[in-house]
């Protein structure tokens, strides 16, 4: 009797794990932290510093000094926003069966466009930054859309195209930004206040963090992703294209349009990330000296989030947390690479999702065997 109970509980746990990608992801994250803890111990440091840094990012509590400062939570969100959006850039495309390594380039053109409008746009409150954000969305969409078009029209590999477009974006951004009058080799003139995303309200509730209207834009983006992908005709068409192009075509869906649309929307997400960083975290335009790396991190974010809206948002928060915790860890003498090692480990361990499934399948088979014999 008790034996039977035990096995049924185990079955249920296993069942939950096969059903729920979310739970597996949580397990994977825990595993990543465990390995990181061991690494920290190996180099003779105190893993407590790692965890206290994380606690400080998530709750604002500095356990060492016993001080609470909500600003850290605000900064965590600030760090997460571009990661979530670049994650969406990858995720949206991958739901349509495309592999978008181009979020970095799309982010850069979005950032550049936003900077342009920030400098040149009409200095009308709200209108100004809204225009800048729209410009970023458009620029990102064009940058992604070009790849989608090349793929649809010439069946050019989007992997190659996006890799090349990333570099082209970087150097083009440098060149065009430097054309703005008053720009020196690393920055444009300071933006007018109307161009900034800063929200006095959000700043005040987070004790002066840089949390800005980007938060609302990100939330809108999350809803947009979730709604469009899951609840609309467009999403249906894109998912169908992603899962079976031939059947989608047969069903009357224009696969070429889907591909171009998906890449454009992907690009728009990354472009938005660019705008939020440009107008939310800086008060001047940057002449980029290199890639910020959000686009590449976005790939990992999307993979950890399983390319769903909620999952990617959560994964973005996780990576944002690690990014914010990294300086705190370093100041607690934890090797600064630990944060990126954890990110890597989490992504590697995500493949355990499949492993767990194999184990569960095997278990279910055993169960069926027993059931079969009983009959």
């Amino acid at each position, binding site marked *: 009797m008790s034996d039977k109970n035990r096995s049924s509980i185990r079955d249920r746990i296993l069942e939950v794990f096969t059903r729920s990608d979310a739970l597996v992801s949580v397990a994977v994250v825990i595993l990543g932290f465990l390995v990181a803890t061991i690494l920290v111990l190996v180099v003779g440091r105190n893993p407590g510093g790692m965890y206290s840094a994380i606690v400080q990012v998530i709750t604002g509590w*500095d356990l*060492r*000094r016993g*001080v609470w*400062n909500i*600003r850290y939570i605000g*900064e965590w969100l*600030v*760090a997460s926003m571009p990661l979530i959006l670049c994650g969406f850039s990858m995720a949206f495309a991958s739901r349509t069966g495309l592999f978008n390594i181009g979020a970095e380039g799309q982010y850069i053109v979005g950032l550049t466009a936003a900077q342009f409008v920030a400098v040149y746009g009409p200095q009308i409150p709200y209108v100004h930054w809204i225009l800048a954000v729209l410009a970023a969305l458009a620029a990102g969409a064009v940058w992604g859309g070009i790849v989608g078009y090349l793929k649809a029209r010439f069946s050019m590999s989007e992997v190659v195209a996006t890799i090349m477009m990333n570099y082209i974006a970087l*150097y083009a951004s*440098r060149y065009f930004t430097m054309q703005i009058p008053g720009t*020196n*080799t*690393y*920055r444009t003139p300071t933006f007018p206040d109307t161009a900034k995303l800063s929200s006095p309200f959000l700043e005040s509730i987070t004790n*002066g*963090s*840089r949390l800005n209207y980007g938060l609302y834009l990100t939330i809108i983006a999350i809803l947009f992703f979730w709604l469009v992908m899951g609840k609309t005709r467009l999403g249906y068409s894109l998912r169908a294209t992603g899962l079976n192009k031939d059947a989608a075509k047969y069903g009357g869906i224009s696969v070429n349009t889907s591909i171009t649309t998906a890449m454009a929307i992907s690009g728009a997400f990354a472009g938005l990330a660019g705008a939020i*960083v440009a107008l939310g*975290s*800086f*008060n*001047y335009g*940057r002449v980029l*000296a*290199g890639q*910020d*790396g*959000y686009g590449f991190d976005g790939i990992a974010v999307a993979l950890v989030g399983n390319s769903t809206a909620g999952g990617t948002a959560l994964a973005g928060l996780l990576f944002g947390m690690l*990014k*914010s915790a*990294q*300086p*705190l860890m*370093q*100041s*607690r*003498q934890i090797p*600064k690479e630990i944060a990126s090692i954890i990110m890597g480990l989490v992504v590697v361990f995500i493949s355990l999702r499949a492993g767990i499934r194999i184990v569960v399948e095997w278990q279910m088979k055993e169960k069926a065997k027993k059931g079969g014999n009983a009959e």
Partner: protein
Amino acid sequence: GGGQQSGSGGDQVTVRLLTDATGIDDKSFNAAAWRGILEFYGDTWNNTKLRGSAYDVVTAQTQDMYIPNLMQATDEHYDLIITTGFTFADALSDVAQRNPNQNYMIIDVDWVNFPNVMQVMFAEHEGSYLVGVAAALKAKADGITNPRFGFIGGIAGQTITKFEVGYVQGVLSVLPNAQIVDYYVNDWGNPADAKAQAKNWYDSGVYAIYSAAGGSGNGTIAQAKEYRTQGRNVWAIGVDSDQFEEGLYNATDSAVLTSMLKRVETGTIYGLNACKNGTFKGELITLDLAADGVGYSTANKALSKAIVDEVEKVKQQIISGQIKIAATHADAKRLPGFPQNLKAMDN
């Protein structure tokens, strides 16, 4: 952490160094700042006893982390927060303004004027002038007939321009007919391009290449080592720290003829002492040759005593003001004989 000690009344001065993504192991600028801190506390590179209690360092992975990192350090009440490089300028203006009681220091910037910000500038053009002179004298000593000199920069800008124009003036002061070539990699981390360019120039008779290009500069050194091993008489010139070691291609010989030393450590030590003595104020300190803030390396024995003596003479003339060196491209271009087609940019 250092903050709590100072908060709880320790008498030790506490400091947090904030760097950009390259971190303190860049063998150059950030490393020098860190060295200053170590020196101040009597620690060494491999023995950092007080790290974590009196001083520490935080690296920003991306530029948008500058403000949060500054704010974090501010929260933790260090006696001094040091930031390296002009890319920190705007973030620091923002934070310093909001935290008037916190002391900050910034290197390479002279336009963040707040009472709680100490700014440290270096006369890189003076040091660069000296390495230019040294290289040209060496070429002359080697009997180079058609002397050509190269400069490889990372990304063009005001600071790097001081290196370039100082160096060019130095070379031309010795060899007025020398030909100058320059190249900007547009990347601080692409040694391959720098190496290809160095090879190209060395092949076309360039005698020495001075690179102020961060990690890209390693390409120049690599190429110089290779050619010197093959018996070609070409040189690389190091930057920021003494890159003699990097240039060693066997146990004793280095392909780095000399290095322009930018003693950021002098700046950090100055700031720390000011904090210790309670004399810290929002001042602009310019560390030039006279203040021993910049200099050149004589580690390479290929730089003969005669040459060193000559360079020392020039150095004295600069200190005494006999030699004036233009620090901007615009000023330099107005000098007679100064090449007009360089890619340096002021701003």
